[in-house]
């Protein structure tokens, strides 16, 4: 079969060519129809609509993500407001509970001290402080109604506070150990030298009558000696802050260990306690403070 170039027309060759074209196109159309004729058009329509479908899909995804993020933001803000309210409420509750907690903590510490000292200790609250004034002291909420008498020792877990100066029917006044007119019989833990503690104010006191021959180190613990019959032997008073040699005696400056400005509850020793009680008051000695430049 050779296809020759010839003019188109209604000749035999033209009819044959027309039949050939119709046969080929008809067959092709039949093939394209397939078992499901619509599928081709559906495929074509799908192909042409794919860009718009993709665009619409992305648009819908963006709107969905925006809607979700907006909802998440609103939920987060509501949750944040709720948590803020709860936090404020808890802070208020904590502020309300703080004094009671502190008092409970103080009570626990006093109870521990009471167990360490096998004496009939009584507890009282500090209702007022006149320490900033001259010859000021601490006012307790109990007095003769609790059987208190003057010169009873007053102490807290950190150390001694002072002694009862005056006792009223329902109140009592405490003379703190740092008052100028206060005196406490003390001894040094390491050297065992004894002396008399006299207050110099501001939580500090001076030990007198300590011989020049004694070796006193800064940071050494100072305990009650029990000789004044106000405090038994071994209660912590404070720590040596400074030692100045004098002509006849050492001037030993002591930082009182009891926080006299922050006392809320105290324990009262019985009047005329024994010289020494067992077990002794536990004292942890501070390390001596070294000055810079000294070996």
């Amino acid at each position, binding site marked *: 079969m*050779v*296809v020759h170039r010839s003019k188109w027309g209604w000749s035999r060759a033209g009819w044959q060519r027309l039949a050939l074209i119709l046969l080929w196109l008809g*067959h092709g159309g039949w093939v394209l129809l397939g*078992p499901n004729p619509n599928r081709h058009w559906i495929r074509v329509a799908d192909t042409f609509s794919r860009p718009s479908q993709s665009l619409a899909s992305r648009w819908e995804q963006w709107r969905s993500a925006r809607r979700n993020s907006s909802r998440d933001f609103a939920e987060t803000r509501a949750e944040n407001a709720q948590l803020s309210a709860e936090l404020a409420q808890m802070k208020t509750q904590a502020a309300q509970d703080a004094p009671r907690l502190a008092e409970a903590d103080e009570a626990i510490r006093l109870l521990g001290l009471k167990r360490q000292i096998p004496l009939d200790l009584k507890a009282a609250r500090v209702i007022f402080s006149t320490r900033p004034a001259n010859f000021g002291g601490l006012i307790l909420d109990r007095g003769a109604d609790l059987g208190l008498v003057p010169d009873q020792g007053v102490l807290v877990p950190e150390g001694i506070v002072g002694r009862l100066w005056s006792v009223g029917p329902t109140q009592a006044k405490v003379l703190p150990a740092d008052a100028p007119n206060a005196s406490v019989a003390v001894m040094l833990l390491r050297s065992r030298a004894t002396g008399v503690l006299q207050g110099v104010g501001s939580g500090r006191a001076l030990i007198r009558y300590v011989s020049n021959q004694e070796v006193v180190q800064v940071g050494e613990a100072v305990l009650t000696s029990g000789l004044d019959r106000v405090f038994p032997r071994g209660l912590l008073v404070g720590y040596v802050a400074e030692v100045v040699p004098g002509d006849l005696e050492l001037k030993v400056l002591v930082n009182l260990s009891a926080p006299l400005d922050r006392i809320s509850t105290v324990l009262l020793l019985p009047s005329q306690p024994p010289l020494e009680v067992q077990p002794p008051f536990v004292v942890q000695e501070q390390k001596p403070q070294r000055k810079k430049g000294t070996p």
Partner: protein
Amino acid sequence: MRIAAPSASRQNLLCAAALGLVFLCAPFPRIQPVVHVMLVLALAPRVGSPLSGVLWAGAAGWALEGSLRLYPHLGGTAWADMTITLVAGGLAGRWPLEGLKGWIARLAGLLVAHTLLVHLAVRLAAGPHAWGFGWFWALLSLPLWGWAIWRLMYSGPSPRLG
């Protein structure tokens, strides 16, 4: 040397015989594609008029698909056969054959194109389908049946033999 065209009677007789073989070889799936390809690529394009060749090729395609009874929508192979027959006829008109090697090479190229076109058309008509290995057996046996057609379709001695 230009190759002389064989007589139309011999061509139509050979096409009819090949078409009958397509039917008869239906139980032999390795032989039927070879006969089918031989009819479409080698015999039908050389019939006197393009319409006759296309009719023989379409008949071959329908015969093959009808005997296979595999596809839900027939006609793809027949359309591909008609198309490739037209292409082969056009090639023969524009570039006449001058030897056995060119004949074999042209048949190989047409065979590849025919395979691809048949599968494309069947896919369009009936959807996805198995390729099978008919193309392989046809390509493997191409020198044999190509040489046979060459000797049958042209009178006179072989150009190589003088």
